[in-house]
């Protein structure tokens, strides 16, 4: 069993930042055209997955 992480595909993301505003762990780094989840901070709560207008973030192993 691998470790679960939230993966945000930079090829499909619109970089709108909606997930950043809801993340309870302040774990999402958004720049002009890149986004990354800090897996040390991420608690895998799934709020970013729920709120994304496009359905980009996913929990993967």
């Amino acid at each position, binding site marked *: 069993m691998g470790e679960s992480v939230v993966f945000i595909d930079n090829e499909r993301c619109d970089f*709108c*930042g*909606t997930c*950043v*505003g*809801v993340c309870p762990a302040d774990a999402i780094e958004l*720049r002009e055209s890149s986004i990354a989840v800090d897996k040390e901070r991420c608690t895998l709560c799934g709020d970013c997955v729920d*709120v994304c*207008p*496009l359905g980009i973030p996913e929990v993967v192993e």
Partner: protein
Amino acid sequence: MKDRYDVIVVGGGPGGARAAKHAAEKGASVLLLEKDREIGIPVRCAEGVSESGLRRVVEVKDRWIAQVIKGARLVSPDGTVVESYPDEVGFILHRKLFDYDLAVAASQAGTEVVTKAYVQGLTMDDGVVTGVRMTHMGRARRISGSVVIGADGVESRVGRWAGLETRTPFGEVETCVQMTLAGIDVDPEVVELHFGRQIAPGGYLWIFPKGRRTANVGLGISGVYSREKKPLIYLKEFVERRFPGASVLTMIAGGVPAVPTLKKIVTDGLMLVGDAARQVDPLTGGGIVNAMLAGRIAGRVAAEAVQEGDVSTRRLSAYTKEWSKVDGKNNKISYKIKKVVGRLSDEDLNRAARVLLDVPPEKRTALRVFKAVFLRHPKLIVEVSKLFV
């Protein structure tokens, strides 16, 4: 870029640009930082604003106006159409030009504007914010600022870094997607708003014309519903039905923090403005005018505080007080109405639409809508009465 400024504004949208302009006009040295390469791009907005609201905050330039709006067509879940032609005119803006000109105005007032400037943290001294940590052109920098103004949008992190509670619960976010369509046929002076569980649950769909052949067509749904079905899917379904064969000139995603303004929007050496402070109207999702009103107050207070050498929470709270005088009450009522409206069923909305058809178009105000729904819906009267106590 220098190593220190009186005021550092993070975020180059309308709130940030106004804060910068007004602080600079009061004599402060001001740095405005924008993470994207160009002010105003990408647009993350439906671009609608009321004429009276806009004139409250700025002298309006013709080049900002993509379309003058004279009426609204409200469409209920069963397709009942209610037209409304209030006294008030609205505008659909060219936000690219609007934001650009506001940044130019800030610059002309003496602000130094820097783009592609990514702020990644604050510098603090004994709990007081003293500046920002940032990267610009591949170079890490620390810039000192007596006051930092966070105007960094729905994705704001500046407040959190200073210890303010700014997170919006996902169920309170309106999660949105919008396509700018071309090759369509719309009535250019009328916006359309569509309601219903199948169209945009916990929100609404908008058609904001920009001329006769193009429009911003988008929707926002409550974060509560976006787990099961994404806004993008709702929008694609609508567009395929209503505008088959349309060209999609651009598509954007975005979120509106549809909550009351944060209780704490200042702390030692720091202020929050606009979406970062959650100053958007929670019912309509409109945020431009509020952000600019707040930016004006925040910029002035910041400059005065710096001149007096007191950037404490207590001094900066003059901004909080002034803001609650200007819009605090509207914001709270709007939020309460949003909560009640969110509980309306499709049947309630259909009923409201039918009642409204009996009212002359110029008298179809929000108040009438409420009467129409609630006078026939006793269980909601209790909820509504809470709005006015």
